[in-house]
């Protein structure tokens, strides 16, 4: 395989989303015509050797993905990963939000002593927390609170049903 074709292969792999010709051209210095030709060669080679991967033109760009017929297996793989549950970092952050809501990111970080931006993204993705307005202080930081989904999962009617922590406090 010529070096340029291998480079495109690596780019499509690492992108994880459609990459436009313009972008590929900026990164590699290849002309749009060269890129198109190399893409086609690569796509045909994948087909010819019955690879588990395939190359497509999607949403105005090039995209590398698994062959659709393998979808059931891929789902199993991702299901496995999903079942690993929430990390300890996520659990602690969720607990802080539950008991101290509404609360800003900085306030959570002050308690946990570490950055929590990624964890917050994850909890939002899972719809366990949501943005709940802004705190009226300098910079108007976003406030976070738990969602109905959160109550539903833990079988709570409302937040007043959260177990009290007082008895453990000295």
């Amino acid at each position, binding site marked *: 395989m010529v070096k340029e074709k291998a480079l495109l292969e690596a780019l499509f792999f690492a992108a994880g989303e459609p990459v436009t010709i313009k972008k590929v051209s900026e990164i590699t210095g290849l002309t749009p015509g060269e890129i198109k030709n190399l893409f086609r060669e690569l796509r045909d080679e994948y087909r010819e050797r019955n690879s588990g991967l395939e190359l497509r033109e999607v949403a105005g760009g090039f995209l590398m993905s698994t062959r659709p017929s393998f979808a059931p297996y891929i*789902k199993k793989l*991702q299901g496995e990963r*999903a079942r690993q*549950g929430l990390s300890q970092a996520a659990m602690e952050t*969720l607990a*802080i939000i539950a008991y101290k809501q509404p609360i800003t990111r900085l306030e959570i970080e002050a308690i946990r002593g570490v950055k929590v931006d990624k964890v917050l993204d994850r909890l939002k993705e*899972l719809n*366990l927390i949501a943005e709940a307005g802004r705190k009226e202080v300098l910079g108007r930081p976003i406030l976070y609170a738990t969602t109905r*989904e959160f109550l539903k999962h833990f079988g709570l009617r409302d937040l007043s049903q959260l*177990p009290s922590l007082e008895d453990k406090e000295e």
Partner: protein
Amino acid sequence: MEYKVKTDVFEGPFDLLFHLVKKAEIDIYQVSISQIAYQYLEYVKKIQEFNPEIAGDFLVMASTLLKLKSQRLLPSVSLQGEEEAEGEGLHYSSEEELFERMLEYRKYKSTAEIMKKMEEEEKKYFYHPVKVEEEKAAGNHLKEYMGKVTLKDLTASMEKVMENLQEEEHEVILPQEISLTQKMEEIISFLDKKEKAELEELLERQRTRSSLIVTFFALLILVKLNKVSVWQKYGFGPILVTSNNVGDNSYMDEERWGTIG
């Protein structure tokens, strides 16, 4: 002796110790604390003006050096009990142990450099990024993620957070600024009244470990400035401290000596 005062030069107290041992051209197996401790303290005195936070680690080592040194000088004074009571991690029972640890540290330091290179190499590999949407496609994602997580887990997490928080708050209260100048003044005025004092007397008056360390520092500085003398009549006898009665007090300059937090 001139040291380059650049606080990022030494990664930790052992790094500095190595440097001093190497500089003194002493065989590491022959080194005695006494040969090194004074230079170590000189250096720490300098860096703590520049970066008090880094100086903290170095100070702990300084106190260890002083403790080992004092054990050599005064076999009867043992700070061991206090150390353990405070649950302090950094205590070495002998010079041999300290230098053994230092040698061990050096092995890990050079291995860490190799690992740094491996890390650099590994960063050149890129993976197919897994999108959250792809994971969602795997099914009812919230249930998948949260299936086993109960309310009990949630409260347990919160209790853990609060426990950690309490520990930290407890730690924050401890640091207390002790002025080196103030300690120097204290020693001088103590000696003015008494003419001569036993070292033990001076140290006994110190309530906390930090003030003990600072007193030691202050004493070393006074000796260096020729303001006081420290001597011993006979082996294992009491160590006596006397004032040299030099009237000039211009060395008592807060700016110059700063504080140790």
